[in-house]
């Protein structure tokens, strides 16, 4: 990487930035899920590693969250943007050098930010925990350079139209910069009180709704048609998806605070808009599943398609939960319980991660022109992720329902803790499976780069037989 940071632009091979982003994202995924697994063990066995602030739950929980959001998910997004945007514009990335620098600065900033968080230095606001100097760094050196590269690549494209995926990329990277700067404004301008509390959740909602969800979906809009060879079922449904994300997904921030003292009109408005999230969700899922027509065998045989379609299928329970759990009728029962933790993992570890994993698998193979080293390891990774996640999701959902019942029947809290203990152990086992699977993935990708079968130009990696 360092040799390309100071090379002339034309000397940097196309796709370098995507490769660096891809491998960085996998490394952060290993770190992030490792921390998650360790945190989960502390909830099951609180005395395991103790008496040291560096291994205290309260110091590590936010590091896990930010390592997976800013490290794994967002860097996988950046990786996908670095190779998909130019591919869809029939051109090269606008600046490969900017991309390489972006990747370096991203890793540097994230390392710094997570170290600061680990020490307990925080803004004290969930999801926008980074102190303001890290926020400014993220905006200036991570998000904006990525945006510039994406927008310029689209502007310099050599095709007539702009494909669905690229609308999403261009819009989402714009929206996340706005969301990031507005959402962190309480720190920049010392805003206090309910405004600050509301903006915390305005940020948390919109970073998911206007960044993670649309970019993950955009990746699937590329992967499925590309790998299966089927054209996208309907561009009109793609339009419906795009516009309903912009209009409906950007408004229900207050539904995260349904039982907090906010103005009632705001909560009611947010709740209605929250149900309308089903519009983009149904548009997306149906569009992708219909694109699979005639190619369903690839769901079984092809790793990238299997990852993507599994993620798409997980969007169904995800959005059914998401659309309705925030209404007053349901929210009073499950608010603040493990149910929400399960839901958040269904969004990030289920839906979104599976789509990104497919993009990273596919992208690294096509850019490096190397066939995946071991399909078996890839399959093991898939099943470790899916089974580990399912154990996690089921156990946390049950734990959440227990907590909800404990809450409304006024059970002494310690009895809820005792009842949840087996599910905390299950959660830890599930998380550890995901972590182990990711280590295998890193090894597999590393060996792919070193020893994978060379893919001739013009061929897709999955069209080749393994030769070893």
């Amino acid at each position, binding site marked *: 990487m360092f040799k390309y940071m100071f090379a002339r632009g034309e000397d940097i091979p196309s796709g370098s930035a995507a490769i660096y982003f891809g491998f960085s994202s996998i490394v952060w995924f290993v770190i992030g899920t490792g921390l998650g697994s360790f945190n989960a063990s502390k*909830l*099951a066995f*609180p*005395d395991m590693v*103790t*008496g040291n*602030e560096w291994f*205290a739950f*309260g*110091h590590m*929980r*936010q590091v896990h969250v930010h390592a997976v959001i800013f490290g794994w998910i967002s860097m996988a997004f950046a990786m996908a943007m670095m190779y998909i945007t130019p591919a869809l514009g029939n051109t090269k990335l606008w600046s490969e050098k900017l991309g390489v620098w972006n990747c370096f600065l991203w890793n540097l900033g994230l390392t710094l930010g997570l170290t600061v968080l680990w020490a*307990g*230095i*925080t803004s*004290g*606001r969930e999801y926008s925990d980074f102190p*303001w100097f890290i926020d400014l760094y993220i905006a200036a050196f991570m998000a904006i350079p990525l945006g510039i590269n994406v927008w310029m690549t*689209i502007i310099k*494209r050599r095709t007539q*139209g702009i494909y669905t995926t690229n609308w999403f990329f261009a*819009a989402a990277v714009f929206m996340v910069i706005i969301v990031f700067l*507005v959402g962190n404004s309480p*720190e920049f301008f010392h*805003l*206090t*009180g*309910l*405004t*600050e509390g*509301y903006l*915390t959740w*305005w940020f948390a909602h919109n970073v998911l709704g206007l960044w993670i969800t649309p970019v993950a979906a955009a990746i699937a809009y590329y992967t499925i048609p590309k790998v299966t060879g089927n054209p996208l079922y309907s561009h009109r449904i793609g339009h419906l998806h795009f*516009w309903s994300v*912009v209009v409906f997904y*950007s*408004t229900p*921030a*207050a539904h995260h*605070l349904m*039982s*907090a*003292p*906010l*103005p009632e*009109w*705001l909560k009611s*408005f*947010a709740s209605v808009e929250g149900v309308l999230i089903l519009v983009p969700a149904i548009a997306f899922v149906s569009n992708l599943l219909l694109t699979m027509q005639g190619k369903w065998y690839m769901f079984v045989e092809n790793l990238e398609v299997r990852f993507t379609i599994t993620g798409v299928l997980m969007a169904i329970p995800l959005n059914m939960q998401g659309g309705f759990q925030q209404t007053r009728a349901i929210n*009073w029962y499950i608010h*603040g319980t*493990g149910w929400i*933790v399960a839901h958040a993992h269904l969004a990030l570890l289920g839906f979104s991660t599976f789509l990104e994993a497919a993009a990273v698998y596919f992208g690294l193979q096509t850019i490096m022109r190397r066939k995946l080293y071991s399909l078996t390891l890839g399959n093991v990774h898939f099943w470790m992720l899916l089974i580990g996640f399912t154990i996690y999701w089921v156990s946390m959902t049950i734990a959440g329902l227990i*907590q909800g019942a404990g809450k*409304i029947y*006024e059970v002494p*809290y*310690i009895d809820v*803790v*005792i009842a949840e203990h087996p599910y905390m152990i299950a959660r830890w086992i599930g998380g550890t499976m995901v972590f182990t699977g990711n280590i295998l993935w890193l090894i597999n990708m590393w060996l792919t780069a070193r020893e994978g079968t060379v893919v001739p130009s013009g061929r897709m990696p999955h069209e080749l037989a393994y030769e070893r």
Partner: protein
Amino acid sequence: MAFREYKIGARMFGISLASSMFITLVMPTLDIRAVGATDIALDKQLAAGRETGFNLDDPLMMGRNKPLKVLLRNDPKTNTPLDTPRYVYVFNAGTSFPSGILHPVTLGADQAQLSETQGNISLASKAAGAVFAISHGTVNGHELPYIENLTATKGWTPADILLVAKDEDVSHVGAGKTMFVREGCWWCHTLLPEETQDWQVFGAPPALGDFNGESPTAFGSDRKAPDLLHVGSRNSSREWMMMHFFNPRLVQPHSIMPRFDYLWGDVDAKGNKIDFAKWRTEYLEYHDGKRVTPPDVPEYAKDSEIRYLIDFVLSLK
């Protein structure tokens, strides 16, 4: 190529995003801004000082630059007992003032007017330090709380107060909130009884005006442990808190809370070095049934981080 064939789309995008920003940012902010501060909000901001998350006054989050909440029993000028003891908030010279003093408009229009005309808050000086209290006045027939600058109205200086106050009446609530945020207590303990069903167990949910001037609000979202907004009313035992923070399993065998023994620092109240290794060995023997009683929890030092944290938790009434 640019975006020119997407002119309509780009404009529609701008209009839709701007409208949603207007509805979700501007309208709620105007609404929330009009809410007047309650007694609780004034207490929270005067006790916690300017802001608790990362800031340049306390970059390592050590609990610096924070006011003291003092239960005043004697008149600081005459040292005679007051009719009723009252809480005052002592900002030693150089301590940053909270949002309500710097920007009275955040208190709500009436509260701001009372604080300025009757409370003389505009006379308070950070360089000299000040003593504040919550007083009550009437506007248009409504009794409302306001901030009174006792340094201006009564001539009480921070030094006067600390001279007559006993150490047990001094609460490091602000520094304790720093510990609460830094140690991540709010990842499991919410500060937000829910409006629907928490009344019986965790007490009344907060009201709209209970937050003016507070930062961060640290509601918490993922409740893995009891809500703490009114914990000081349920349990006011300092000894229980001490044992529970040192090792929660001492008082609640099934607790999954981490041990916070590292907040004791190196020495105990008498200045002796705390032998954590010995304590853990003895606790393990107790845990395994080789001892009848657990080892004693060391008394914390007067200026230890755990004292701040316990002061904060007990202040949550």
